[in-house]
Structure formats: C-alpha cells, structure tokens
C-alpha cells in the first residue's frame, strides 16, 4: 500500500497528472514559508535549516522543488512572499503551485523575484538531492546516481551516501556504495581516525578506485626554502645532484624567489646580438664569437658595463644551493594520514605487481601458443625430416586465406570456422605433398639448396596471393562467442580468442604426440627418419612416408594459419612475420622433437613478454634483444633445450 502511494506521489512529482492526494497540510510551500527570509536572501547558513526541513519532510514534491531551485528557476511573488514554479510567457510568467503543480495564474515580470542561490547553497541543495536519488526506489536509478557521484565526488555527498548505505537492500549496489563511502571518507571526512580506518579498508585492494582515492593523499610538490618549513608534512629532503639535478634545484629556488634566474646561452647570445657595435660586442670581435668561452668573456664585459644582467658563476651557484633546503612536501597536512596512505599504496603496489605478473604470464602463454602453432608444422618438416621449408610461412598464409574464402561462402562464422579448419588442412596438405613430390625429394641430400628452392616457392606464392587477393588486408572474423575477454579483475584479463588458440595448441600437441608415438604412421615416420635404408628393407616405402610427413607438417601450418588469421590481418605477407621466429623456436627447442618446439615456443614467448615488461613502449627493441638472447643461447646449447644425445644425434 505504501509503495502504491509513493508510486502515485512519484507520478505526481513527474507532472504526469495533478495529484490532489499530495496537497496535505504543511506542504512544501509551508516549509519554505517558515524559512522565507533565509530562502529569499540565499545566505548559506540560513538556507541550511530550510533544506534540512525539506529533506526531513518526506514530501515527494521536495525533490522537484530542490531541483528547480538549484537550477535557478524558482521564483518568489513579491506581493505575498509565496514561491512558485514560473515559465516565461509573453512579458510575464505563467505560475504553477509548487505543491500541486496546478496552474496559479499569470504574473507580470515586475511581480516576481528570481531566487539566485549562491554556489555554496547550490552545493547544499545538490547534496540534499543526492540523498533523494540514492534513496530512489528504482535500483537502476540508484546505480546511475552512484556512478554520477563517483565521477564528481564532493564533501557534501558523504552524509547522504552513508544514509543510503544504511538503507540499501541490493547487496551488489550496497558493496559499491560502501567502497565509494570509504573513498569519500578518505578524501572528505574531517576525522583523522575515520580517514585512517578508511585507508586501511583499501589495503591490498587492486581496484582502480582504491588507487584513485589514495593517490592524492601522497601527492607531493617540490619546494625550496632557507630551512625546512616548520609544521609542513615533508615527504623527504632532496639533495641537489643526487635526488634532483642542480638545474632543477635552481629552478625551484627561482620559483620560490630565493635566487635570480641564471643566464642561459640563449640569453648570452641575445644580449650579444643586441650590443654589437662596430663589429664587436663586449669588446670581442664578432667573428671570434663562435665559441662559448669567447661569448662568456664578451658577456662578462657587457655585464661589467651594466648593459646586461650579471651572471651567477658556478661556484656562487653551488654556494647558494648549499645554503638552501630542497624538499618534497605532501599536500595532505597530516603525517599520520600520509603514512597510512603510503603503507596502503605499498601493499597495493605489491598486489598490483603480482597481478601484473599473472597477466604477463597469461600474455606470454598466449604468445607461446601462437609461436607453437606457427612452428609445430616446422617441427615436423624441419625437425623430423631436416628439410628447411622457407615456404612454411606461405602455407600459414594459405590457411588464413582459405578461412577468408570459406567465410565468403558460409556467412555463419561458427560454421565457417569449423569448415575452414579441415579445409585449410586439406589445401596445405595438398600443397605440401605437391611441393615434396615436385621439388624437395630431389634435394634430400642437398639441404642448403632445399632452403633456396623453397624460398623461390615462397616468393612465388606470396606474389600469387597478392595477384589473387590484392594487397589490402582481408578480414577473417571470429565467431561472436569468441568476442570479449575473460576478465579476472582490473588488471588480469585474457581475450577468448587467445584462450581458444591456447586450447588449440594443446589439442595439436596431443594429436601429434599421439600420431607420432602411437600410430603405425608415426612408427614408420620415426623409422624412416632414423634409418631410411633399414626402414626400406623392412617394407616401409620411404617415398610415401616422406610425402605424408611433409604433407602433415604443411597441413598443420594451414590450420595454424586459420588460427593466426583470427587475430592478425590476413595479407600476403602474413607468413613472413612468423618464419624466422618459427625456425628459432624449433632450433632453440631442440630439433627432432615435438616437445622441443613446445619448449622453444614457451621460452621465446615468455622471454619476449618478459623483455617487453621492462620496456613496454618498445616492442621492436624487445624483439631485438630476444633474438640476441637466442643467438647467445644457441652458443651454449647448440642442440637446443631438448637435445638428442650420443650417436642418435648424428653429428
């Protein structure tokens, strides 16, 4: 019943219909009339009881009146001192009753006085309004109000927020309100103990709002003085030369009016140029003024003649610096607060660091799985068969374009990816088998020439792709359910595509290990690679096995291409970006071993992300250092992480 009434009253407040129910005794008008003088004068102290009375009245029109008042649209009739909503009409106003909203006639301009609340009063009104909004029956409105509040927090919001917390029923909203209340307490509460308690609330909290609330407390400004200022909350004393450069220290002195600005080289030049007389300035011929020493000499002469500002010598400057104290001062005056804030921030920084490390680990894992996918085909063709296939990158590209073409025909992205994966395998398997039959098998005893021949194929395939698909990037769109990211908190997040690629890498690893170790084909592949002659004499056809192995490695490159195409631009140069890294992955990991590729990809992925962490702005430098590290690594472990030993290594 109560809800019904308040709902109806709410409707009245929105002017959907005049509401006679609300016209009860002692309406808003009555309250305002009680404080008429104060409301009209707009003095902050006098208005406060009026606003409080409105707030306390529980009247539904109170909110409307406050909003209008704050917007400077409330008018007072001079004749009787009553307050009205007024809308301009002709050369006067159309009045409405502030309790009922009913039309209250027309008034000439001269009859009405506009209420012009001062900034302070409007702040008070705003705070009162906040209370109304935070107590709004609709939780969505409360949430909006809270969000607005957190964007522009003010001291006056603290009280209504606390009331709202007490009244809140929605647990999630209540938690958010409490957080904001803690943050506002830190910023605006007058009681130091309460603030310190609130600071403690955020200890180890990785939320951005926590850091935003704490950061202003430990903000410092630099200053200079003859002696350390008494009573100031000094963060630390700075030593010129160690903590700040002498130039910076001098600038602080100049700012504090404790020393004159030093004469710069540009000043000297300007002064000399202004004082050239008869081919000389300051007694030094102009043609000799091409060195700093000569210019300083000339300037000194000018200064001595009183025609330029005298310079401060370096020795004098040092003496002046020595006579002053340089410090960093907290804006927050209370040492107890800054101390607590520093401690809380330190714990947050530690937690954030740990989280960033976790995030970095996820990034590195995802990079490693990309490298692994790109390299795993090579781990077979190069690692097992010792064939250098420079066109491997182009097989990746072919896979990606296959995915693109499939999407042209199959509009459903989920189905198209499911079709593209086996199709890409088939296409590149075919290409690989064709290449093995036509080119590579003639070159098994000339590995370096395989490198060159496959490079020829690589440039031809790249140009063919350019001729067919053009040079601009083609989209390969991931299905909708792979959009977005798995978000753990403000710091740790990973996109679903990367998770999918990680899973795919694992599936591939398992599949290949199964094929190579548990199937007849795998057995024959291992037999042929270890001793082709012996394998042949046991009835295995090495030609067939080589062909199938090469096809397998190429097919996997194609599937990897679809995966890579999902997050990279599909261009004819897609494969180029991966080829060198892929070879390094295989070599670093250890040739002849699927797990080698895994180890290599892991090492390279983590290494690259690790180096990027130290210098996040410069991924090119990170890649450079990573490659240099790999070159050094190979010096010390020429056979990679997982090395075959002894005679089997076949050195």
């Amino acid at each position, binding site marked *: 019943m109560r809800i019904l009434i308040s709902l109806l009253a709410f409707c009245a407040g929105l002017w959907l219909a005049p509401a006679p129910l609300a016209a009860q005794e002692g309406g808003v008008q009555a309250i305002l009339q009680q404080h008429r003088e104060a409301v009209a004068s707009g003095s902050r102290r006098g208005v406060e009881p009026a606003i409080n009375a409105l707030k306390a009245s529980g009247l539904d029109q109170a909110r409307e009146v406050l909003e209008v008042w704050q917007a400077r649209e409330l008018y007072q009739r001079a004749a009787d001192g009553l307050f009205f909503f007024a809308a301009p009409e002709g050369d006067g106003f159309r009045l409405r009753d502030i309790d009922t909203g009913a039309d209250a006639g027309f008034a000439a301009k001269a009859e009405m006085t506009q209420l012009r609340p001062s900034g302070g009063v409007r702040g008070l009104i705003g705070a009162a309004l906040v209370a109304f909004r935070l107590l709004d029956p609709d939780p969505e409105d409360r949430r909006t109000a809270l969000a607005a509040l957190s964007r522009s927090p003010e001291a006056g919001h603290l009280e209504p927020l606390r009331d709202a917390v007490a009244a809140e029923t929605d647990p999630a909203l209540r938690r958010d309100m409490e957080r904001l209340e803690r943050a506002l307490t830190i910023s605006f509460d007058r009681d130091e103990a309460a603030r310190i308690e609130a600071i403690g609330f955020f200890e180890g909290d990785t939320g951005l709002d926590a850091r935003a609330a704490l950061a202003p407390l430990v903000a410092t400004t630099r200053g200079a003085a003859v002696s350390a200022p008494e009573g100031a909350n000094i963060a630390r004393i700075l030593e010129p030369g160690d903590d700040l450069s002498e130039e910076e220290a001098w600038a602080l002195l100049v700012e504090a009016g404790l020393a004159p600005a030093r004469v710069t080289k540009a000043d000297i030049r300007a002064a000399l140029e202004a004082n050239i007389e008869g081919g000389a300035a300051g007694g030094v011929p102009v043609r000799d003024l091409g060195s700093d020493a000569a210019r300083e000499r000339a300037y000194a002469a000018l200064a001595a003649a009183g025609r330029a500002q005298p310079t401060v010598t370096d020795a004098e400057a040092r003496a002046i610096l020595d006579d002053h104290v340089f410090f960093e001062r907290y804006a927050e005056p209370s040492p107890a607060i800054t101390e607590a804030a520093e401690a809380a921030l330190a714990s947050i920084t530690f937690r954030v660091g740990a989280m960033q490390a976790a995030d970095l680990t996820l990034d590195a894992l995802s990079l490693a799985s990309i490298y692994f996918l790109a390299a795993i085909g090579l781990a077979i063709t190069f690692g097992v068969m010792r064939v250098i296939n*420079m066109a491997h990158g182009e097989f990746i590209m072919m896979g990606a374009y296959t995915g693109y073409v499939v999407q042209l025909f199959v509009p459903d992205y989920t189905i198209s990816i499911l079709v593209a994966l086996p199709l890409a395998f088939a296409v590149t398997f075919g290409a690989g088998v064709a290449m093995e039959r036509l080119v590579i098998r003639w070159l098994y005893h000339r590995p370096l020439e395989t490198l*060159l021949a496959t490079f020829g194929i690589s440039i031809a395939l790249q140009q063919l792709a350019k001729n067919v698909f053009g040079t601009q990037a083609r989209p390969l769109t991931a299905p909708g359910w792979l959009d977005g990211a798995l978000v753990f908190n403000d710091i740790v997040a990973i996109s679903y595509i990367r998770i999918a690629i990680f899973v795919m890498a694992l599936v591939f690893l398992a599949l290949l290990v199964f094929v190579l170790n548990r199937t007849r084909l795998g057995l024959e592949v291992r037999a042929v690679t270890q001793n082709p002659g012996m394998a042949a004499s046991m009835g295995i056809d090495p030609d067939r096995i080589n062909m199938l192995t090469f096809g397998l490695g190429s097919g996997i490159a194609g599937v990897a291409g679809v995966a890579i195409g999902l997050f990279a631009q599909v261009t004819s140069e897609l494969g180029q970006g991966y080829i060198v890294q892929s070879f390094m992955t295989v070599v670093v990991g250890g040739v002849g071993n699927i797990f080698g590729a895994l180890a290599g990809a892991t090492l390279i992925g983590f290494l690259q992300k690790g180096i990027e962490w130290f210098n996040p702005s410069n991924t090119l430098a990170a890649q450079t250092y990573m490659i240099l590290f790999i*070159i050094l690594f190979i010096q010390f472990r020429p056979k990679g992480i997982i090395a075959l030993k002894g005679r089997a290594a076949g050195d």
Partner: protein
Amino acid sequence: MQRSFIARNPSVLVFLAALALFTILVTILAEGAGAGVISTSFVKTLGKTLCLCLVAVAMDLVWGYCGILSLGHFAFFGLGGYMIGMWLMYARTEEIVLSANAGAALPMTPQELSDGIAAQIFGVVGGSELPWVWSFAHSLPLQLMLILLLPGLIALVFGWLAFRSRVAGVYLSILTQAMTLALSLWLFQNDSGLRGNNGLSGLQNIPGLAEVPQATLSLWFLWASAFALGGFYLLAAWVVSGKFGSVIRAIRDDEARVRFLGYSVEGYKLFVFTLTAMIAGIAGALYYPQAGIVNPAEIAPIASIYLAVWVAIGGRGRLWGAVLGAAAVSLVSSWFTSGQVPAVPLGFYTVEWTDWWLVLLGFGFVAVTLFAPNGLAGLVERIFIRGAK
C-alpha cells in the same frame, strides 16, 4: 716454383678486361661525359649493379667456396651504406645549417652547430640531439674506417660465437638470419638513433660537390664501383686460387676431415666470414650514395636470401658466376618491375609483368636449383668449355 697467379688464372684477366671495357663504354655513351645515349639514372643503375656484383663476389667466397650459407651479408652491405650515409647526411646538413646562419649576427658555436644539425636530421623522429652513434659522423676518415670495422667487428664476434660452438649448415643459416632480423628490427625503432624507418636520405648529394652535376657524379661512382669490383675480384681470386682456397673448399666439402688434418676450421671460417663482411660493407658504402636512400627495409632477412639466390643462379664456386648472377637477375628484375615489358594478353586475363615477375622469378629459381645446380656459369661452361675440348 709456382707460376704467377695471373698466369694460372687467365679467367681473372678476361674478367678485368671485360669490366674495364664495360666501364669505358658506359662512360662514352653516358650523359655526363659523352654521347648521352645512356641516361644518368641508368648509369646509376649500372653503378649500383656493379656494387651488387661485388657483394655477390663476397657471398660466393663465403658460401660458394667456404660453404657457409650466410643470410646476413646483405645486412653488412646495408651497414656499410649506413656508415657512409651518416657522414654524407651530417656533412650535407652542416653545409645547410651554416649557410642558413650566414646572415645571423654571430658565428655559431660548435654546440649550436651540432644542435642545428641534429634538429634538421632528427626532426622527423622527434629528436633534437645527436645520438651517440653519430659521434664520428663529422669525420669522413673515421666513418670510412667504420665501413670496414663495423661489419667486420659484428662478423668477427658473431662468427667467433657461432663457429666456436660448431653451429654449421642450415643451423648457421638460421642463426645468421636471426642476426639480420635483429639488426633490421633494431634499426626500425626510432630511438636507435638512425631515424627509424625513415632511414638516411639525400645521400646522392655529396658534400662539397654541390656544383658537380649528378650526371658527372654518377660516372665517378660508376668508376669507383668498377675499381672496387675489379680490385676485390682480384683479391678474391687470389685468395681462392692458392692453398687457402684449397683449404676452404675442403672445409666446405668435409669440415671434420679438415679438422683431423690439423687445420683449425674455425679460424678459417672466421677469416672468410669477416673478410667478406667487410667487402660487403664496402659494396654497400658505394651502392647507397648512388641509390640516395638507405633504410632498415633494405636490411631485412629477405634481402640476404635474394643475394644467395643471385649467387645460386649465377653459379656457386665460380667468382664470375656470382657476378653474372647478380648482374643478370638484378637488371632483369628492374627491367620487369619497371613496367617496360609489354603485358601478355591471354584473352581472359592479361599478364602484367609487374605483378607476375616475382612468380616467374620464384619458379625460375626452383627450376635452376633443380635442373642447373651449377647455375648459369655451369651452363656456360658446359656449352663453351666442353665444346672447346
């Protein structure tokens, strides 16, 4: 006693004569000094081709004779270009800055001059100070030394590390490719101090020679390139003709066996690798003033593979084969990509050679590898030398 080196290697004399004839002929026909049949830009193309032939000779020495398939020699070539480019750019900008200051009231201090130059050179990458790598850029002799020293030093350190740990064959190729990639990535970044992907430009303007027309300059560079090619061809031929050549060819064919003969294989490889890196640096230093611009894309791993392709097409293990391959492929390449080759209409499709040339080159290269492992030189020998017998 041994007969003289030239007497044992008549082909060297033939080559030098042909080179001299070619250079004189081009000079006579050029715009700058003669009939004007050959345009200045084509003279530059020919001069650049000679430099490419020189780096191909280096590649042949290291790969064709010593068996090290280096995918890094074009990086050394590019480094040579960067080293000369730094001086060219610095000295040229110095002239510009000084002339801009000519009307000013005061002469410039060294600091002001260097700041002015830095602002000109590094404005594009948002820098205003000369990075430390430019410490020697003011001095031509020092930069000329760096053309030799920098590629040589990198090759020495890299080679020492790689050969010491017995990295050989395709592994070494991959490692050299990684080195090349690292170098080009490093140059690509703006704070490497070499203007990032803008590279160094305006290198065709030789400081102090502003009044010499490009037509004449192009001939000077043609001659310089020809002399360098001739000189290093002679050096390379001398190196490979004697016992040293015998040792490095033996290393190429069976490294372990040479080791058991008591030769320290690593030392020989290091010597050849470093020497050829220096030759590549010189070739680059002559090439880029003719090209006018050097940027990190030139150093990308693919360029070094192309170099290997030229040598393979020309014929490994024969110095003149490498020269032939580099000249033929690079000239034919620029002819096809220039758009001067008439398109082939097939009715349903028109073959534009600018689009299809790389396809042709790629498959052509596969064919050469499969059917003519000794390259063009092998074919030439089969036709002429067998025919003469």
